[in-house]
């Protein structure tokens, strides 16, 4: 039997499409899910593209939650960096988020949960990649926290901060991911957007709309 050393090799040319250049930034609305609410048994990856998730289903009675940051640079601070590993290198992902509110309900229903919870987030890139020949739109939705989970590494409120309007500055971090980027894409962009929207549908018995 051949030895498997998990050789890390590149397998395609590094080229850019000058008519389809990458665009920076994220849209104003993302989805955040409690990681335990995801039915990992039903996650399906594309058979030939390991960085593409085609199916992501919540457990019965569970839903994701919309996070809206209506600023000029929503979710600023979101990105990926190289992480050191004792054995293998990894990727650390961060999700930056401003919660422009501070009241008893926000603290009870959101901030307290962010304090010690583990989360998965789906953001919508401004770069949709609609001009590519095959699978246009597959760059639209990107998932953070699917492998290790996002946990809070910054949770602060400054009553006089002009940057946060006295709201909460939140940074969620996933350390030790083995995949540089995971995208949500099912068949085409319309189907994928439906899947994205379906994650936050109200569940019976409350939970908010």
């Amino acid at each position, binding site marked *: 039997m051949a030895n498997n050393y998990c050789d890390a090799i590149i397998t395609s040319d590094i080229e850019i499409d000058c008519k389809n250049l990458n665009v920076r930034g994220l849209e104003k609305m993302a989805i955040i899910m409690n990681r335990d609410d995801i*039915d990992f048994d039903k996650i399906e990856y594309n058979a030939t593209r390991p960085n593409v998730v085609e199916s992501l*289903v919540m457990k019965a009675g569970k*839903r994701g939650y919309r996070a809206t940051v209506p600023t000029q640079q929503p979710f600023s601070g979101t990105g990926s960096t190289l992480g050191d590993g004792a054995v293998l290198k990894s990727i650390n992902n961060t999700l930056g988020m401003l919660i422009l509110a501070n009241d008893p309900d926000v603290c009870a229903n959101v901030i307290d949960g962010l304090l010690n919870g583990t989360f998965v987030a789906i953001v919508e890139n401004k770069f949709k990649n609609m001009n590519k020949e095959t699978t246009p739109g597959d760059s639209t939705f990107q998932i953070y926290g699917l492998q290790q989970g996002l946990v809070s590494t910054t949770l602060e409120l400054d009553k006089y901060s002009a940057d946060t309007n006295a709201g909460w500055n939140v940074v969620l971090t996933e350390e030790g991911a083995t995949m540089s980027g995971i995208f949500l894409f099912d068949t085409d962009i319309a189907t994928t957007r439906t899947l994205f929207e*379906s994650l936050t549908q109200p569940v*019976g018995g409350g939970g908010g709309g």
Partner: protein
Amino acid sequence: MIHGEFKDKLASLVERVNSPKSRDADLSKADKDFVFEYYPRVTGRYFHKSKCSECFKDAIIQMNLIYNKTKQIDMKNSGFKLRNGVVLHSQSGNGVLSFKNLTDERAIAFIVEFAERKVDLLKQGMFAAVPDNYDDLIVAYYQKLEDEANGVNKEPVKADNVTEATTAPSEVKTPVKRTRTPKKSAKTSK
């Protein structure tokens, strides 16, 4: 898709297919998905893609004729609810099933289609809720198939209302394994 959006979409398709040189090949996948989804809801009959060259064009014209006469479309959902994140893909040309287009007929059609592939959608928990009259809906579905196979002409489905599905989901019931043969004492669900 709300009723108004349906009307606009149908009108735009009719305008395109009425062009003398229009062909099915000119229709996009989204256009064809629209036909698969809404033809049954307007006509009360299932749309089967056969070997005809202008099936979709004919279907669109027929939908328009019937809709202009009845002004009704079946949007009824008696209580089906998919789990969040579930988007089902038909392998029989019925498009996708999601929370956006979930009606009694489409839900039953998908449940039956998947059952024929030995996939029990209810057992897998793909549905968060099914309506109390689930058994009746299954029977009615098979009865309709049988009627169509026998060439029985049916009046277009007249829905009690034409609003989006708003029925609150009921508890998930133990799925009933169904065979293709409907009961003799079938009764309609409407």
